[in-house]
């Protein structure tokens, strides 16, 4: 009887000790901020998704190495939509319901973004897309929870037409890819042409995986076009450049900002010389004057990216960079409150990013102006600034 009692008391004491020890453990770590991402890491748009994923991981590591956001570590959950609309939607649902994220960055493409924003708007979750289609953030009244960091194709088209008008061009042929990016670009090219006194005399389409655009270019050859504007992304636009040279078509070729990467120059080879396009400042930051506030940001990003991934940084990774950076600015002020995060994102002013200087507002969830672009020309295998 006595031994039972002693055992009982000892047992209770042990339990009590454990409880106290448990309570007196090291201070509980602050709740991590969980951020979701959907990128096209594999599939036809992997040249977008891979640098975006790399950049997210690199930045998240940096933030956590510096102690997190006001003590909260950042946890990034990245899913691959493979460029597929259905997968993108499923990942969005998963991030919201299973991973319980505070915000989603991505997707990489216009058509996947349009699907995902459907899901995130219903769930009242901030979405920062890395795609360029105009419809992602407009009309503003119907996109209150959606932001984007890629420069709008509408702005790219304006810059191109501005340049074309200065050169005295009045008739152009447009050659667009059949993806969402191309369709959106085609709309903008047609819509804005009259404003600059330009007539679109030919409209041809090619597929993302096509390998021979000589039929389309042959048709363009028989029109009075004075220049060819190609709107697409991926290796196929390098083939357009090659096919143009192949046909001996002596027309200036203007590409979209989707061609603004070293990889394009590499693939196009000799056919790349003379091509003109609008580009984010990242591809030509070395040529910028030191006084340009974007120069330092681009340089820092490029150097860190090259050191870690042994490849030059691309504008596409830059979209993810700007997205995460602005999200951290909002998180620091708002904490883990989706509504407040959204408001803070909307109020970001003068954020000097890779893709431009962002000034968000309730009517403009992209925050960029056409100055985010510089017009560049490929000369002897390198980008040069065009005045």
């Amino acid at each position, binding site marked *: 009887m006595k031994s039972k009692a002693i055992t009982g008391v000892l047992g209770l004491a042990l339990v009590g000790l454990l409880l106290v020890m448990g309570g007196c453990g090291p201070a509980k770590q602050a709740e991590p901020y969980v951020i979701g991402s959907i990128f096209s890491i*594999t*599939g036809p748009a*992997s*040249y977008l998704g*891979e640098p975006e994923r790399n950049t997210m991981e690199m930045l998240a590591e940096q933030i956590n190495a510096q102690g997190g956001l006001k003590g909260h570590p950042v946890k990034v959950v990245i899913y691959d939509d493979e460029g597929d609309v259905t997968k993108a939607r499923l990942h969005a649902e998963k991030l919201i319901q299973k991973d319980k994220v505070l915000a989603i960055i991505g997707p990489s493409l216009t058509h996947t973004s349009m699907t995902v924003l459907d899901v995130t708007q219903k769930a009242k979750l901030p979405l920062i897309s890395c795609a360029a289609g105009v419809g992602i953030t407009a009309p503003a009244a119907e996109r209150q929870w959606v932001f984007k960091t890629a420069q709008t194709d509408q702005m790219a088209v304006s810059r191109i037409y501005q340049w074309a008008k200065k050169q005295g061009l009045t008739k152009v042929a447009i050659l667009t890819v*059949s993806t969402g990016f191309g369709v959106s670009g085609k709309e903008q090219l047609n819509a804005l042409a009259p404003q600059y006194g330009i007539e679109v005399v030919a409209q*041809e*389409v*090619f*597929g993302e*995986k*096509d*390998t*021979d*655009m*000589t*039929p*389309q270019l*042959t*048709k363009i*050859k*028989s029109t009075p076009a004075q220049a060819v504007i190609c709107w697409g992304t991926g*290796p196929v636009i*390098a*083939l357009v450049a*090659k096919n143009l*040279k*192949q*046909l*001996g078509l002596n027309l200036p070729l203007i590409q979209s900002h989707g061609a603004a990467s070293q*990889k394009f120059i*590499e*693939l196009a*080879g*000799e056919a790349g010389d003379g091509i003109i396009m609008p580009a984010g400042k990242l591809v030509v930051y070395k040529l910028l004057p030191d006084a340009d506030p974007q120069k330092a940001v681009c340089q820092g990003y490029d150097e860190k990216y090259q050191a870690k991934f042994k490849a030059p940084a691309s504008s596409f990774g830059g979209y993810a960079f700007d997205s995460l950076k602005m999200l951290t600015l909002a998180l620091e002020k708002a904490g883990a409150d989706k509504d407040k995060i959204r408001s803070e994102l909307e109020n970001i002013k003068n954020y000097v990013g890779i893709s431009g200087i962002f000034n968000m507002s309730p009517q403009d969830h992209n925050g960029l102006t056409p100055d985010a672009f510089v017009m560049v020309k490929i000369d002897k295998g390198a980008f040069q600034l065009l005045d």
Partner: protein
Amino acid sequence: MEIIAPLLQYLVSGLTNGAIYALIALGFGIIYNATTIINFAQGEMVMLGALCAISIYHLEPSLPLAFLGGVGVVTLVGLTFERLALRPVKDPNPLTLIIITVGGAVFIKGVAMLLWGKEAYALPSFSCNVPLHLGTATVLPQNLWVVGLTALLVLALEAFFRLTLMGKAMRACAYNTRAARLVGIAAGRMVQFSFGLSAALGAGAGILIAPLTLGVYDMGTMLGLKGFSAAIIGGLGSLLGGVLGGLLLGVVEALASGFISSGYRDAVAFLLLLVVLFLRPQGLLGGQK
């Protein structure tokens, strides 16, 4: 509407692509003749040829070396594939073997994605890039290389099958395997050799087309399908049929792309296949089997 001027250009493009489809179709035909199965990994041999040649070129910038090296490596892959994936099958009924080739194709594509990533790579043209003018059309020297080398390979293949002992042995196996065995032909070795030969042809096709279309890890899928369609259109098992089917497919594709709409390019290619299957299922030059 002007027809003649662009027509010539479409023909140039069509014949170039057609020659590539012809080479791939020949690969299908040779294996079909030796084994009565369809090797769906044929398209991946094209891709491997292109990417291996590009890698070799990066190490040592010599195009002939890249070409021969690429063909050599892929031939080995073809031989190994037969030896490891197909020969050991206990119950070699055609359906099982075909499914194994499909699996092989997926595997090879996955390995290629790991080795080369998802990027596209360029191979320089075999000679200069100055376009030549043929009437109203412009032809790149590379187009001439493709058509010329394909013609050479087809002639060499015909000579091989008609004049050499090995070629005759392969044909004997195709006609009647048992009889061939009875006269002392090692049928198993003929099968393996046919895989190696098809792989070599596929690799050649890939290396020829890479300067024009770039090499990517997933280029084999569509090319394989189109090459297979070309083989069916021309008549599976007939070498001349494979060539004819390939050229026809390439030209019809280019004409549809030019005159109707570029979006319909792939659709027209497969429509042609359907039409041939409905009207003449044994293919244009296929005999009664």
